[in-house]
């Protein structure tokens, strides 16, 4: 059933949020630390586990795929509620601080990329989110 996929996603999401909040409390900051990252790891493990057992059938996968496909529209809604007025009102100081930071970070990315092994990178072809072929359930 579709809800099984959605529920699996919800479980991973909630577990990540709770652990991220706990981690934030533990190191004493007023923020969720790594919640989304923990959720992502957890969901990958869960998907792998249930796929191996043949329990993640096509309708359940649809529940996951739907929310993955809603990602871009949700990001557009996110853009529509940014505090753009504050950005405009911030004037040249805010503009320079924001833009220079982004330029410098983009310049640093290729340098950071060179740190460590280089052979473990391979390009992903550009296309919309689609399930891994191995994940097709029985």
């Amino acid at each position, binding site marked *: 059933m579709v809800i099984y996929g959605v529920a699996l996603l919800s479980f991973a999401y909630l577990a990540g949020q709770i652990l991220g909040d706990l981690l934030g409390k533990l190191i004493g900051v007023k923020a969720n630390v790594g919640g989304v990252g923990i959720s992502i790891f957890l969901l990958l493990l869960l998907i792998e586990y249930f796929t191996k057992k043949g329990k993640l059938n096509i309708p359940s996968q649809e529940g996951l795929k739907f929310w993955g496909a809603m990602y871009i529209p949700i990001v557009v809604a996110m853009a529509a509620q940014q505090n753009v007025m504050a950005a405009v009102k911030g004037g040249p100081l805010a503009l320079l601080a924001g833009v220079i930071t982004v330029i410098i970070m983009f310049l640093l990315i290729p340098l950071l990329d060179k740190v460590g092994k280089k052979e473990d990178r391979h390009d992903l072809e550009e296309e919309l989110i689609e399930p*891994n072929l191995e994940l097709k359930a029985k």
Partner: protein
Amino acid sequence: MLEVVFNSLMNNGLITAFAVIGITMYISHFISSRFTKGRVHGSAIAILIGLVLAYFGGLNTGGEKGLADITMFSGIGLMGGGMLRDFAIVATVFGARFEELKKVGLIGLISLLVGTVVPFIVGVTVALAFGYNDPVSLTTIGAGAITYIVGPVTGAAIGANSTVMALSIAAGVIKSITVMLTTPYMAKFVGLTNPRTAVIFGGAMGTASGVAGGLAATNPKLVPYGAMGATFHTGIGCLLCPSVLFLVTKFIFG
């Protein structure tokens, strides 16, 4: 009559948001294929339209949540809020490779530290150039250059005044918007085409909404990797800015 329509839209906020965003996406993809022959990604145009709408929303209401402050469009706030955004980001992991994510480790950590310290230094330098010289204001503006959440959290912790807080939030929002709009064009240039670089990008750029928006219009397959880096960013920033980075700033400029 008109009032009934507005009330219905208002009472069904989230559904109204789905309809509004659906229309926005349609228009964006139409513009993309008709006027740019697909060279400018439809999602990038949609995000730009979203930001323009947010500007007019803020202009009309004086609020902080763009279009979502207009009652009729309040559902945009729910649809594009942190909860559904993070939920959808986690969902994009369906189809990602586990082996790729396992390699995140050290390089992710290095990117995070660079992505915290370098923006901070840039923010402090720009603030100095504009005549600020007290360590509290410098630290707060520097923190804003990390993300627009780290800025006010740091400012509140070390007692910055509201003008400086507003500036630090503005710097963070501009950073986020710049990342959203420029990533699709910078991607090929900086090698942002693979999971490893996406992790570095997420850790170094940090701003969750910027990374989410930027990768949406670049290659949605990279989203989980970018999110993996970005998710620790605000936490690390909130940890380092009011403590270590503030003490260093105080030592130098105090």
